[in-house]
C-alpha cells in the first residue's frame, strides 16, 4: 500500500502494462516528449521511446482510427484524446468504427483498444474544455465506459482496460489528477462491472461516479450530523453497469438520489433514474431524485461553480428526498 496521486496511479498502470506487454503503445497529442497535457505520461517517453509513445499531430479522427486499425491487426493501443470535448472530431471513428467492428463482423474482428480522455470542470476551462459527455458514449452499444474516482481505481481499472478485448473509453476527471489516495501494492486489476459501496447508510442511496463520488461523500458527512444516514455507491464503470449493487441498496433504503456532473437533460443519471424506477417502483418511498449540472454550456471563470452541483446542493437534495413519503 502506498499513497499516490491519481495521475501517478494512471502512469503506474501504463508503465506496468507497457513493460508486461510489448504490443501496448500510447498515441495522442503531446503524450511523448511533453509528457501529457496533465502529466499522466510524463517520463514514459524516456523509457519507451518514440516507437511506443507516439506524438500524434492534431488529427483526432485519424488518431483514433489508427488505434482501431492497429488494434484489429494485433496491437493494444492506448489512444489519448486530450479532452473529452474533442470526441466530436473523432465521433465517427469512436461510434461507428471502434464500437461496432466486433459486432458488424460477427465477432471475428476484435478491437482491444483504450481511448483515454478526461472531462469535467474545476479549472475554469470554458465550455469547450469542461464537459461531461459520458452519456454520448454510454449510448453506443459496444463501448465499455470507465470513470474512476480514486487513485486506486484509476490504476486498477486502467490496467483492466488495457487487458480488455473490448474497446474501452476511459474518462478521467481533470480535477482529480492531484488527488492523493491509498493504492494497494502488487498487481492491481479492478474488474469492470463491480460498483463499490463507499459509504454505508440506511435512509437513502446516492448513486454516482467520478468526482461526484467525493461530493456525495462530503454531503453524506454533513447529513450524518443531522441524523440522516446516506449510502454512497461509486459505479466505477457505466458499461458494464452494476445494477445489482444499486438495486440491492435501494431496495433497502427505498430512496435513490442519482448524481452526475453532466447536464441534467439526458445525462447518465436520467438512465439510472429510469432503471431504478422500472425495477423498484413499488418499494420507493419517493421518486428518484436527480442532481446534475444546469442545462447551460459550462461557463468559464466564476460562473462555472454556479452551473455545477456542489456538496451543499447534494445535501439539500438529499434532505428534501428523505422528507418525502408515500401516502
Amino acid at each position, binding site marked *: 500500500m502506498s499513497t499516490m496521486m491519481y495521475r501517478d496511479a494512471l502512469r503506474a498502470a501504463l508503465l506496468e502494462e507497457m513493460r508486461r506487454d510489448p504490443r501496448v503503445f500510447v498515441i495522442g497529442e503531446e503524450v511523448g516528449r511533453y509528457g501529457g497535457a496533465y502529466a499522466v505520461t510524463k517520463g514514459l517517453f524516456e523509457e519507451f521511446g518514440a516507437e511506443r509513445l507516439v506524438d500524434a499531430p492534431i488529427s483526432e479522427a485519424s488518431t483514433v482510427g489508427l488505434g*482501431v486499425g492497429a488494434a484489429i491487426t*494485433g496491437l493494444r493501443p492506448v489512444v489519448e484524446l486530450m479532452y473529452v470535448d474533442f470526441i466530436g472530431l473523432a465521433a465517427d471513428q469512436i461510434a461507428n468504427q471502434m464500437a461496432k*467492428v466486433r459486432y458488424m463482423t460477427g465477432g471475428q474482428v476484435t478491437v482491444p483498444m483504450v481511448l483515454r480522455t478526461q472531462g469535467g470542470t474545476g479549472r475554469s476551462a470554458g465550455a469547450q474544455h469542461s464537459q461531461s459527455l459520458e452519456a454520448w458514449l454510454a449510448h453506443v452499444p459496444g463501448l465499455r465506459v470507465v470513470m474512476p474516482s480514486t487513485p486506486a481505481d484509476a490504476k486498477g481499472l486502467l490496467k483492466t482496460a488495457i487487458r480488455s478485448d473490448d474497446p474501452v473509453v476511459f474518462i478521467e476527471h481533470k480535477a482529480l489528477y492531484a488527488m492523493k489516495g491509498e493504492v494497494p501494492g502488487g498487481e492491481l486489476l479492478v474488474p469492470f462491472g463491480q460498483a463499490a459501496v463507499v459509504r454505508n447508510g440506511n435512509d437513502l442511496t446516492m448513486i454516482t461516479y467520478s468526482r461526484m463520488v467525493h461530493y456525495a461523500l462530503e454531503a453524506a458527512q454533513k447529513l450524518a450530523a443531522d441524523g440522516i444516514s446516506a449510502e454512497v455507491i461509486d459505479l466505477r464503470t457505466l458499461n458494464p453497469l452494476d445494477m445489482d449493487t444499486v438495486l440491492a441498496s435501494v431496495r433497502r433504503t427505498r430512496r435513490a438520489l442519482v448524481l452526475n456532473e453532466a447536464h441534467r437533460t439526458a445525462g447518465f443519471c436520467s438512465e439510472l433514474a429510469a432503471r431504478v424506477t422500472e425495477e423498484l417502483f413499488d418499494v420507493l418511498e419517493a421518486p428518484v431524485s436527480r442532481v446534475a449540472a444546469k442545462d447551460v454550456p459550462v461557463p468559464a471563470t466564476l460562473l462555472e461553480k454556479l452551473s455545477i452541483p456542489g456538496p451543499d446542493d447534494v445535501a439539500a437534495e438529499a434532505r428534501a428526498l428523505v422528507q418525502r413519503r408515500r401516502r
Partner: protein
Amino acid sequence: MDVAVRPSPLEPGLRRKLFVMMLRIREFEDRVAEGYLRGLTAGSMFHLSVGEEGVGAGAGCAMRNGDVFTTHHRGHGIFLARGADPGRMFAEVFGRREGYCAGKGGSMHIADAKLGHMGANAIVGANIPISLGGGFSMKYLKTGGTSVAFFGDGALNQGVLYESMNMAALWKLPVVFLVVNNQYGMGTRIDRASACLDFVKRAESFGVRGAEVDGMDVEAVYSAAADLYGHSRAGNGPAFLIANCYRFYGHGRKDPSPYRDKAEEAEWKKRDPVEVQKARLIADGLLDAAGADAAVKEVAEEMEAAVQWASRASMPEPGDLWTGVYADDTSSGGRA
C-alpha cells in the same frame, strides 16, 4: 476494342488469372443483383462493382498474403480477388449465419481477419484511418507487409484522407491509398465535387508517392499496384494510386443514373475491362474464343453453386442478436 500494342511484362498464367478473376467478379455481382430480384438478399443495400473489375482484380491480386486491407462499400470484387469464398460472401449478403460476418454485417461490412480483410466500411472514407492503423502495426511488428485502403473518388474530399496521408508520410508507414475512381460519388461527378482534379499532386504534396493508372486495364493496374505495394513494404513510406474506371450500373441496383450522359456511358463501356483483357489474351495467343467461352461457363457454374449453397445456409437465430457486441457477451446480460 482497344488492345495495348506494347508487350505485356506479366506472366501468361497471371494474365489469364486476372481475366478469370474479372469474370468471377462480374458474375458474382450479377448474381447478387439476381438474388435481390429473387428476394434472397437481406435488404437492398449492396453496391455492385461491374465495370470496375480491372481495379478489383488488378489491385487485389497484386497484394500478398500477410498484407491487410479495408474497402469502401463497393468492395465485393476486391475481396474476391483476395481469395474470398464466394459462397460465404453470398451467405453474408443473404443474411445467413454461414456468411463471413454471421449475417450481421451484410454487403457493406464484409470482413475476414484470416484473409487480412479488416472490413468494408459504409462511412465514406472512414476505412482510411483504419488502414493507417494497419500500416502502423505492420511497421511496429515488422511483418514486412503493407496495408491498403481502397476507397472511391467520393472519399477524396474527406478530411481523414489528408490526416492519414500526413501521418503515414510522417512515420513512413507501409500504407497504400488506392482510389477506385469510378467518376461519380453516388450521383455527383468528380469535377462537380473537386476544384483540383490532379489528385496525384495532392498526394505528392503530403510526401506520399503518387501515381495514376487506367483502371480499365487490369494489367496496368496490377503492375502499378504491385510497384507501389513494393515501395511501401520496403520501408519507403506510403503511396497513392488513383485508378480511373467506370461504374457500369447505377449507385444502387435501382438507380438508372439519369445524371450521367448516355454517350459518356457508351464511351466507357467500349473499354469494358473484361473485354479488353479477353481481346488482348486472344491477340497474344494465350486464349481462343472457345477457351474464353469455357472460362465463362466455368465461372457461371462456380457462382451458381455458391448461390445454391448460400441460399440453403441457415438463417440467424433470435439469440444471435446479442452475441458479438462484447468480448464476454454473458457480462452484458442482454443489456449494458
